[in-house]
Each structure stands twice: as C-alpha cells, then as structure tokens.
C-alpha cells in the first residue's frame, strides 16, 4: 500500500482565552493519495479547525496546535516560515466566503494561486509569466467562467462564480491536496451541486486528493467516498461510504430533533 499523503497524529487544538476551548481532542487520521474525503459534523464540531490546522491558518486565530501533522512526509508543525510557505503552496485551500480580492480582476485573483512559482520582484510588479496567464485562463474556463469575464472585477461576480474563482486560484497552485472548508454553505442548493461536481471532477480527472467539510447530510452522502464524522472535537466515524448505515450515522452525527423535543 502507498504511503499516506497526510498523516495527522494526536492532534489537539486549543483556543486560549478566559475559558479555553478545546476544539480538537486527540484526532488521528490518515489520508491516502487520490482520496475524496468528506468531513461531516454540526457547526462547532471542529471541522474548520481540522482543515485550518493542517496548513496552520488556525494560528491566525491564536490557536495552540499540539501533536504531529505530516504532509508528504514533512512535519508541518515543525516547519520554518519558509518551509511552511512551501507547504502551503502545494495545498489548495477553499474558503466558505470565497475570500477573493473584490477590487482585483478575476484573472489576477486566479493568478494569486501561482505566487509560489513566480519570482518576488515579478510578482510585486504584477508581471506574471505568459505561461501562468495561460494556465489561469484555462483554469477559469475549466471551472465555468468564460473568457470575456476574466477582466471583470471580482466584486461583480455572483457567490457561485466567486467560489469558482476560488477553485481556479487553488488549481493554479498545482496542488497535491485540496482542503475545502464549507465551500458551498453560502450557496443555493443548485449552485452548491454544480460546485461540488467541480471538486468531484478535479478529483477524478487529476487524482488530486480532496478533503471537503460539509454540514449538509444530503451533499455528504451524495459526494463523499470516505466519511469522517466529527463530534465535540473527536472523530466518531471514519468509514468508506459503502460501510455506513445512513440512518444511524445521521443520528450519531447530527442528533435527531424530535428526540430532543
């Protein structure tokens, strides 16, 4: 069997404060190349913290991360600033709120993904290599943004289109791993399915390992191939979709409303 691309070992994440919050409690998980994993759970279960710990974005929220995270054999938590940037450039991250720069054109927003491959001076002057520009156009068309719109400001796009730009940005990174944190939570159900299909296709066509956080059980069962269930910061499920009984799973993960009422 091949080596895992991502290995999380005894991961505990604490948000300090007057009342410290333990968002993740001793989490262990291994992800293998090419997998399509859905992390399921209600809000507050620790899904976001898990993804944000993997590329250490959680440090922006002053989180204390304990344990070991190996990406491609390198311990992320021990990495220097420089190594961390190198690691991040190989992990595409998709945000719930898309996080595009509204004032910049669509094309530049996608090109931001290639910053790791462009020299510092060139990137500061905004002179991207022709090859990267080609790739950006290509990636945008691929996620469904036609060429005539590439010069528009990102502010003029709809939510679904902004998320497509977010995916194109991740693709420009030539990622080995895609982490998507509630990528469709702000979208209507139809657009949500369109965007989920893009993730599915990228995973199937290029074999890019993908981890998606979803709170919606319908989408979880429709797209997940392996499902990790989180509750109160602990993994309570980790099985391929075929081995999961949908009804007991929903009760365990989401709890049933009528039982509480």
């Amino acid at each position, binding site marked *: 069997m091949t080596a895992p691309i991502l290995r999380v070992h005894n991961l505990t994440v604490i948000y300090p404060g007057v009342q410290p919050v333990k968002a993740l409690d001793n989490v262990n998980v291994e992800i293998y190349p090419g997998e399509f994993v859905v992390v399921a759970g209600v809000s507050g279960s620790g899904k976001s913290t898990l993804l944000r710990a993997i*590329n250490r974005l959680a440090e922006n929220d002053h989180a204390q991360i304990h344990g070991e995270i190996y990406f491609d054999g390198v311990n992320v938590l021990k990495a220097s600033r420089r190594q961390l*940037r190198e690691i991040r450039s190989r992990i595409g991250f998709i945000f719930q709120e898309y996080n595009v*720069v509204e004032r910049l054109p669509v094309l530049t927003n996608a090109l*931001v993904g290639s*910053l*790791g491959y462009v020299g*510092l001076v060139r*990137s500061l002057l905004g002179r991207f290599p022709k090859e990267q520009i080609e790739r950006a156009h290509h990636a945008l068309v691929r996620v469904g943004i036609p060429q005539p719109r590439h010069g528009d*400001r990102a502010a003029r796009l709809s939510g679904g289109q902004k998320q497509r730009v977010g995916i194109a940005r991740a693709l420009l990174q030539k990622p080995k791993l895609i982490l998507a944190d509630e990528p469709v939570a702000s979208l209507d159900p139809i657009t949500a399915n369109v965007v989920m299909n893009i993730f599915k296709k990228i995973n199937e066509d290029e074999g890019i390992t993908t981890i998606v956080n979803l709170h919606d059980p319908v989408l979880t069962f429709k797209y997940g191939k392996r499902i990790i269930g989180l509750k109160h910061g602990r993994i309570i499920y980790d099985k391929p979709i075929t081995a999961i009984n949908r009804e007991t799973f929903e009760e365990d993960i989401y709890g049933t409303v009528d039982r509480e009422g």
Partner: protein
Amino acid sequence: MAQWTERARGEIWLRRLGFFLGLLFLIALYGWALRGVEFDLSSIFKYGGKFFELLGRMYPPDFSALPQLVRPLLQTLQMATLGTFFGALMALPLVVFGSQLVVRSALIYWPVRMIMNILRTIPDLLYAVLFVAAMGFGPAAGVGALSFFACAIIAKLTSESADNINPKPIEAVEAVGAGKLQVIRYAVLPQLIPAFIDHVIYVFELNVRVSAVMGYVGAGGMGMQLTTAMEWRNYSQVLTIALLIFALVIVIDLVANRIRDAFVQGIVLPRPLRFLGLSVVATLIVWSFISLEVDFNRLVKGFDYFRNLVWAIVTDPATEYFELAVQRMIQSLQIALVGTTISFLLSVPLGFLAARRHVGMPVAFAVGMKQIPNIIRAFPELILAIFFIATFGPGPLPGVLAIAIHSIGMLGKFNAEIVEKIRKEPVEALQSSGASRLQVFRYAVLPQVLPEFLALFIYRFEINVRAASVLGIVGAGGIGSLINEAQSYRAWDIVGICLVVIIPTVMVIDFLSARIRKKLIEG
C-alpha cells in the same frame, strides 16, 4: 407579585432621581459655560442690527478689483494642491509603519501612531501661525502648514481604513504560500488604495477651504487680501473676496464629490481617460510648484524655528503662563460647547425639514431645505468670526456665533441623513395600532434618531474644540488670543506653553468623544 411591584417602584424612583440630578448638572454646566463666554442676549439684540448694517455697507460688491484678485485666487488653489501632494507623500510612511498588518513590532507602530495623533491635534490655523513665524509671510508658509495639516488627516483616516480592511482575502493569499510582501501587494493594497485616494481628495477639499482663509494670518493666498481689505475698511471689496472664496469652495466641492462618488461606486474608467486624469493632476502639481516659487532656503530657516520652539518647551518652559493658558483653554472649551449647542438646537428642526422621507413633506421643499446647510458650510468660520468681531468687538462671543452658524452646515446635513435612514417598520407598527402623529414621533421616531443626533453633536463638539482654540488668533477669545499676543511679541516660550496645553486637551477630548460615541451608537 407584590415584591415585583415594590422593586419596580424603587427603580422608578431611582431613575427619577438620576434624571433630576442630570438636569441639575446640565443647568450648572451651561450656566458656567454661558458666563465663561460672556453670552448676553441683550447685547446680541442691541448690536445684532450692526451686523446687518455691516452687510449693508458691503453691498454692492466691488467687481472692479476682480483682475487683481485672480492671482491670489490661483495662489489659494496652488497652495492647496501642493499642500495635499506633500501631505499625501508624508502620510504614506506613517500609514505603512503605523499599521499592524505590515509591522509586527509594537516598538515601531506605537511611536508612529503617537506622532500621527499629535499631528492630528494641532488645528489648521495654528499650523499657519507657526509656519508664518518660521518661514515668514507668503505662500511658502501656507504650503508648509497645509502639508502638515493634510498629512495628519490623510494618515489618520487611511490607518483607520487599514485597520478595517477585510482580513479574509489576506488569509487566502497566505494560504497559497505567498510571502509578506506578496500578501501586501495582492490582498492589502488593492483594498487600501481606493480608500487612500478617497481620503486624499477629501483632504484637498478641506485644504482649499483652509487655504482660502489662512492668508489672514499671513500665509499667502486670498486670505491676505481679506486682511488688507478689512484694515482699510474697504467693505465692498471684503464682500467680493468672500464671494470669490465661497464660489471657489462650492466649485471644488462639486468636482471633488463627483470624483469621490465614482471611486466609491467602483466605476472603472477606460485607460485613456485614466491617463488623462493622471496627467491633469500631474500638470496641476507641476504648475503650482513652478508658479509659487517655493524658496528652499526658507525651509532650512523654518526648521531652525521649530527646533528653537521645541527646545524652549523642553528646557525653558514659560511656566508662569501655564495658569493663564489653562484658563484660556477652558474658555475655548466653553466657546465650543455653547457654539455647538446653539448650532445643534437650530439644526435638529432643519434636519427634520430637509429629510426627504419625512412624512407629509413635499419633496421639492425638502430638496430646497437641504441646500441651506450646503450653502452655510461653504462659508469658512474665520470669515464669519471676522464679521462678528466687526459687529460685537473682540471677545469670546463672536467665536461662539461663528461656530454656531458654521456648524449648522454639517449638523443640518447629517441630521437630515439620519432622519432619512429611519427604519419604517416601527413607525408602521405604531400607526397600525392607532397612535397619533405625536405618539408615533415620541415612540417610533425619537428613539431611533436621538442616539445618532447626540453622537453627531459630540463629534461636532470635538471638531469645534479645535476651531475654538484658534479663532482667538483673529480676536475671538479662547487660547488663540494668547497665541496671538505671544506671537506678536515673538515670545516662543509662551506659544510653546499654549501647545503644551492644547495638544493633550484635544487628545483627551478626542478619546472621550470616540468612547462616548461608540457607546451611543452600539447601545
């Protein structure tokens, strides 16, 4: 149940007591302030007629002097242009090194922010007085003063924008593995530059207003003509100059507002137009620079003056004048308080009348009423103060009146905007329950607008404290009068003591005002 009513009754009594004490406090406060500014209704009525007599003597304006006034008018515009340009250049490093997004170490950004705050406390005319003393009469001093004034405001506003930019795109750019500089280039600057340009244009508007009058203390431009005309009692020329200043301010406001609106709405101009705009601005700057003939030797001399001033403050402060300076500063605060209050009382009804959505008011009427504050705003306080001094003689009262009238401009405009923003739902809820118009006003309209009115009042008070500290320079009471006397005897150490009193006072007022306003708005 009985217990509950007991407690409620106790609370009601407590609230009544609080209300009563608050009322007593307000009466005492205003009694004290009114006496401090020598407010006297009978003298207002007695001499008020003289004000209109004065206006009568000004009419008709003397347009024969117009050709001689073209050059000072252009000079006013040139000083404002250069002042804004240098101010923006000086503000950039302050913004960059004062931002937590760029600089990690508090050892760097705290001192930078401190400098920013101190620069911000010094009022416009005070800069003018200092620079005239440092660099001699003429436009060079005007450019110097305007540069510092502009730098302070641009730096402050842009840093506030920098603190409020959306952190989410920053996270996205970090997540692709970009370095610090790349994050600034792709996530911070695109968000910050539009705000910066917006602030620069806004400050240009302010600079034109200041530049038009600061010549009154010798800093070049139109204001110098105003001094001469006032001294020769050439009243018809005074009116001509006032009208010209008024026209200049209105035109610049209109143009600048158009451009700023376009920026806020994010309208993208085609490349040739953008290029044209840039070259117009560049030409304006170069033209101003050439025709003002700024003498750089004077800059060196000016630097000496400021070194001496700071040296005098540190080594040999005129402590014997400290008490007097504090007394005069208190009078400035009283002037600001009374002036702002009168203005507030006048502009609340104006706000309701000018609000377009107010029930039962024809739109054309509201639009007409809305022009009143716009027109008043274009008349600089200083000119009003000069007119009132000519009417009532020097003293704090002209200062109060100048502030009271000029502030109607901003208060009336913003009050109207507050009334227009009222949420309709509570009004409709009361109407549907059969409440009378007065009841609707008391229970649905007033609770919505009152906190915002008060917040605006406090904000204007904060601005007027600065104005009241300098209007004395032309004879309108407060600490400015002390600066004026000290300046004419070249007593730097006394000017220094005034600065030592003004800067912390204004800082404390700013801080308290920001605190209270936040409380009022957020509830």
